Structure formats: C-alpha cells, structure tokens
C-alpha cells in the first residue's frame, strides 16, 4: 500500500497570557525588548503515516491535542513546525486561508463531532450538502441536485428529508447529513471527529456500519478520532494513542488494546467499561495531567500520573521506539512485551 498522508514532526504551539496587542506594542517601543510569551504545547513533534485505504484511530483524553492535530491535518489552522504531505504534495506550506480555495482542498474532508452544531441552522440538509459542491466543484443547477441526491442516498438519507433544516432532523439523520457533506466532493482522506459520540448505541451501530460500507465503496482512508476504545477496536486497522501533545504508542489496533505497552494506554484500556468484566482490575491513575504550558522537554509527559515513574522518567524524555509494527515512548516498554 502506498502512503496517502505523511505527517512529520508536526508541532503547534499557542501563546497564552499575553498582554493586549496595543499595550504590547507600546511596551516594545518603550523597552525595545520583545516579551517572551508562555506557550501551550498542543501538538509537539507528531509523526505518522496513513496508507491508502487504511483506517487509523486516534485516541487520548480531552486536552491531549487530538482536535488541534486534526484541525492542522485538515488545514483549518496553520502548523508551527513540521511537514504534512498529501500524496506527493507538501500541503503545509500554503497558509490555511489560501488552502481553503486550493484544488486539493476536496481531498481531505472532515466529519465534525456534533452534527447539530456543525450544520448551519439556516441551511436545509440539501444546502448543507450542496455547499462544498458549489465551492469546490463549481456545480450548479441540475448537476448539483443530482450529485446531492446521489450522496444522500449513498448515506441512507431519504430524499424527502433534504428540504428539512437540521433542527427538524433526528440525531442519526443529522449524522448522515454531516457524512454526506464530507463525502460529496470525493475526498481521499476522511477525518471523523467522534462521529457517534452524541448518538445512542442503537443509532451508533447503524452509523458505524454506514461508514464501513462507504469506505469499501469509495475507497477512502479514515482517521477516526474517538475516546470510545471499543468502537476504535472494531473499526480501525491501526491506532495512535496521544498524551499531552505527543504520540505515546501506536500499532495495530487489536494488539495495542490487547497488550498495551505504554502505562497510559494500559490505564486507558483498563478504565474502559467492559460488558462482562468487573471494574476491579483497573490500573488507577492519580492526580491531574501535567500542565501543557511550556513543559520541561526532559521530563516524560506522563510523569507524576504514571504508576511506574522513576528518576529516569524525570531526567530523560522517552522517545518513540519500534518493536516490530509497534511504537512506544516509554523507558520500560520491554517489560510488557509479549514473549
């Protein structure tokens, strides 16, 4: 399989707590010095590859930088450092606002977390799906209507619902509109940000099956962001585990969830409720995560919450190391390797 998306050493920092712009300019003029702002390290040196036709899961707790990473990949925001390569083309060079009108814009599309919030309330379902087609495909009139109706039926959305506004649709139908809108322009890579988080289990199953079918029919790759590990396990070939801006573990989904090597993944896997298991054998995490503001580059990000935590973790940042198809950023990964 050839690689579709290559992400190399991508970083995105956000400045925090700066003085208002006018005051900062005045201060700079008076003192001649530039104030150095503290920075939130939202995404810090992340690298991975998505192959053609692959489904990759991205898991991690809220605040770990999943959304920032996803927004950087969809080119909704600019990255600070690193490269994003789509096929043969480097897409991270163009600023996000220019890329919005780029010919490759259609190739990466996104399904947002809450379809209710991400569909313009003044748009009917038809207009919501037609919008990207008008902008990126320049479709009009009959051709536009035909294309919208085709994707709507691909997504199992009855055509009579196209005239409705998003508040007149059920949660499952709204999710279908969100998916139809994203696949309308025939993307190569579809990024799904918790597409089923707001849905009941019964509807969730239907949407997951729809996504699976669309992938086979249209030959897309998926990046599936979720905190529901049991869903990731069912849907994904490979999984990336993120903690405070860094990827701490990656590998084939089933292997990662059955034999997690990083202590954070272990905590995550054992914390997920299972139908036929009691909650007792869980690995307990203590305390709150470390601050993502200007973290010490030599301390493991998980230090302090990690049940393992030794002196080595406080003085050397563990790098991602490879064990076959698996990659783990922990000094003690060997101890958990299946023999």
């Amino acid at each position, binding site marked *: 399989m050839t690689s579709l998306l290559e992400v190399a050493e991508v970083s995105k920092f956000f400045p925090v707590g700066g003085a208002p712009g006018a005051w900062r300019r005045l201060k700079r003029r008076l003192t001649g010095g530039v104030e150095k702002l503290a920075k939130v390290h939202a995404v810090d040196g992340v690298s991975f590859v998505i192959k053609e036709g692959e489904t990759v899961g991205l898991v991690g707790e809220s605040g770990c930088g999943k959304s920032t990473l996803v927004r950087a990949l969809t080119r909704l925001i600019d990255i600070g450092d690193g490269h994003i390569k789509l096929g043969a083309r480097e897409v991270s060079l163009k600023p996000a606002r220019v890329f919005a009108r780029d010919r490759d814009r259609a190739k990466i599309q996104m399904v947002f977390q809450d379809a209710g919030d991400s569909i313009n309330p003044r748009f009917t379902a038809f207009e919501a799906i037609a919008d990207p087609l008008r902008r990126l495909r320049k479709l009009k009139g009959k051709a536009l209507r035909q294309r919208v109706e085709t994707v709507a039926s691909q997504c199992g959305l009855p055509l009579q619902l196209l005239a409705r506004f998003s508040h007149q649709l059920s949660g499952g139908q709204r999710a279908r509109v969100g998916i139809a809108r994203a696949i309308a322009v025939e993307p190569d890579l579809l990024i799904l940000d918790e597409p089923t988080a707001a849905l009941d289990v019964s509807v969730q199953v239907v949407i997951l099956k729809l996504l699976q079918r669309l992938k086979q029919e249209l030959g897309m790759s998926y990046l599936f962001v979720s905190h529901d590990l049991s869903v990731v396990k069912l849907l994904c070939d490979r999984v990336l585990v993120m903690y405070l801006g860094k990827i701490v573990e990656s590998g084939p989904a089933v292997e990662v969830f059955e034999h997690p090597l990083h202590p954070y993944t272990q905590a995550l896997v054992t914390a997920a409720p299972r*139908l*036929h298991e009691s909650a007792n054998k869980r690995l307990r995490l203590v305390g709150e995560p470390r601050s993502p503001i200007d973290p010490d580059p030599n301390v493991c990000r998980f230090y302090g919450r990690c049940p393992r935590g030794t002196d080595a973790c406080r003085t050397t940042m563990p790098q991602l190391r490879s064990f076959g198809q698996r990659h783990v950023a922990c000094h003690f990964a060997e101890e958990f390797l299946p023999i």
Partner: protein
Amino acid sequence: MTSSVLSVEGLSVEFRTRSGIVHALENVSFTVSKGETVALVGESGSGKSVTAYAVMGILDPVARVTVGRIVFDGVDLLAAKRSDLAAIRGRAIAMIFQNPRTALNPIRPVGKQIGDMLIRHGKAPRRNVPEQAVEMLRAVGITDPARRAQAYPFEMSGGMCQRVMIAIALAAKPSLLIADEPTTGLDVTTQAVIMDLIKDLAGKMGMATIFITHDLALAGQRSDRVVVMHAGHVVETAPTAKLLAHPRHPYTAELIAATPDSAQNLEELAAIAGSLPDLRRTDLPPCRYSERCSRKIAACDQPLPQAFLGASHLVTCWNPLPSENASGTRVSAA
C-alpha cells in the same frame, strides 16, 4: 427483601404540550434498597431522566403525574406538602446532574456553593462553613482544596467540576443519591475515577444510588441491579450479572448486542430495528416495543403482563427469551 429506601409504584407521567399529550412514563415500578446501586438504562427518550426528576419532584410544570406513588422512607412524595418536600430534597435525596458546567453557578466560587448547601440544611454552624466546604472538596479528592474552594467553575476541568457537583450532592449526607449520567463528556480514565469515588462515598455513608446511563457496559460494572427502560416502560429488571448474561426481554438482548464491546468485529454488531414510537400517539400499543420487536406474537396486543414488586428478575413481555434454566420468573397477567 431488604428494607427499601425508595419504591416507585405504577408511576405514569404525561406532558401536555402544544402538539399533544406526551405519555412519557406509564406504569413505572421499581424499588431501591438501602446501600444498593440501581442503574436505569435505556435509549434517549426512554424516560430515565423523567423518572429521576419525578422522584426529585422537579418535573417541568407542564408535566402531570396521572397515577402512581413514589414512597421514600415511608412518605409518599407525591402526596407530601411542598414544605416537607423542600426538607427532603437535597437533604435526604440528592442529585448529580448530567452537565456539571451548566448545573453549577458560574459566578459563585465552588467553595461557597458547597457552603450554601451546608447552611441550607443546617449541617454546620455558620462560622465553620468555609472550613467544612474545604473538607468536602478534600473528600472528593481535589488536590489543594483550600485554593480550589476560591475557584470559579470555569477555572476547573470537567472532571473537577463533576467532583464539586458530587461534593454538593453529598454535603447534606443524603440517604439516596440520583446520578444522572454523571460521566457523560468525561474521559474514560476520569470516568473510572469519578465512578469509584461515588461508590466509595456511597459505601461509607450507606447510601442508596440510582445511576442513570445509556452505557450498558458502564451500568454492568457499576450497579447491583439494572432497570431497563424503553419508551416510558420498564421492560426488564434483574440483578446486573444475571441481566447481562441472560437477558429475557428482546429489547435488553438487542441493547446488549448493539454495545460495541459485545462484538469482535463490526459485522457481529447488531442494530436495533426501528426507533422509539412517538409518545404523543393516542394509539400506542400496550407493549411499546412490539412494533420494533422480532418476537412479536398475537398475545402482544393484549395489555402487558404486570410486573410484581419483590421478585428478583422481572420481565414485562408475553414472549420473553427462554431463561437458562427455563424456570425464570415469567410473570403472569394481573
């Protein structure tokens, strides 16, 4: 049967709306014993929260309890005076709401909000209130509680806000805690910690808990008994392990089969056919699941079999799945 703290008997609730009467609950019955954790499980719109609100006496004004009793500690809450209710609510029955960020007062420091509760229910002399509030924060596992007591909800993470909600709910040492999806929107790691916390504190205080969730896997791990609801009906009630291993009601079985954890791959995962019926309909069938049900038989058009209070495994179905020893509590018509 051990002494029940709460017993809901034949509760029916309807909402009078402009577009018709919504029959939100019909003949809902269940009991909660001392120290027991009961999970209310079902899809959204199944009436889990309405049941909780009815017990708390905080139903929307358009709602009307048409028939039924809610007996708490020997008192019928529906017949009680407003002033008596005010004394029970918050003090004896406390509730943790779904979204801590909207349930907390955004312009009052969290320590003060806990203090309000202590003052309202006279649990501490006024001058000790700030100290007590800090103690409560410490009890729910917030680090540096003295400083955090001064913080506003927006300064805290979702998990910490939920801990504050728990501290407020437990401030008056209630004998019944209602937790309405206390961990939706939280990470699995935080979820596990919060659920542990509720369990530990409930154990220490001998408190009964009603735990509302749509996550069957979570209910399975965290409850003693499960009450499965569908479209305002209780369809099945059983001890948790028994219910998960041998569901009798077709809906429970489908709910389990739809839980992602139950399958090895996506193909095995089964969707539940159809959707909840419109509860405004005047021609709702006696079994509100019958229109979605694959085990429907002729008897399903008759009034539902009555569930008796007291038996351990109840199923309101004319054609339930066979039990493992074929001698389950098949309930007969009243």
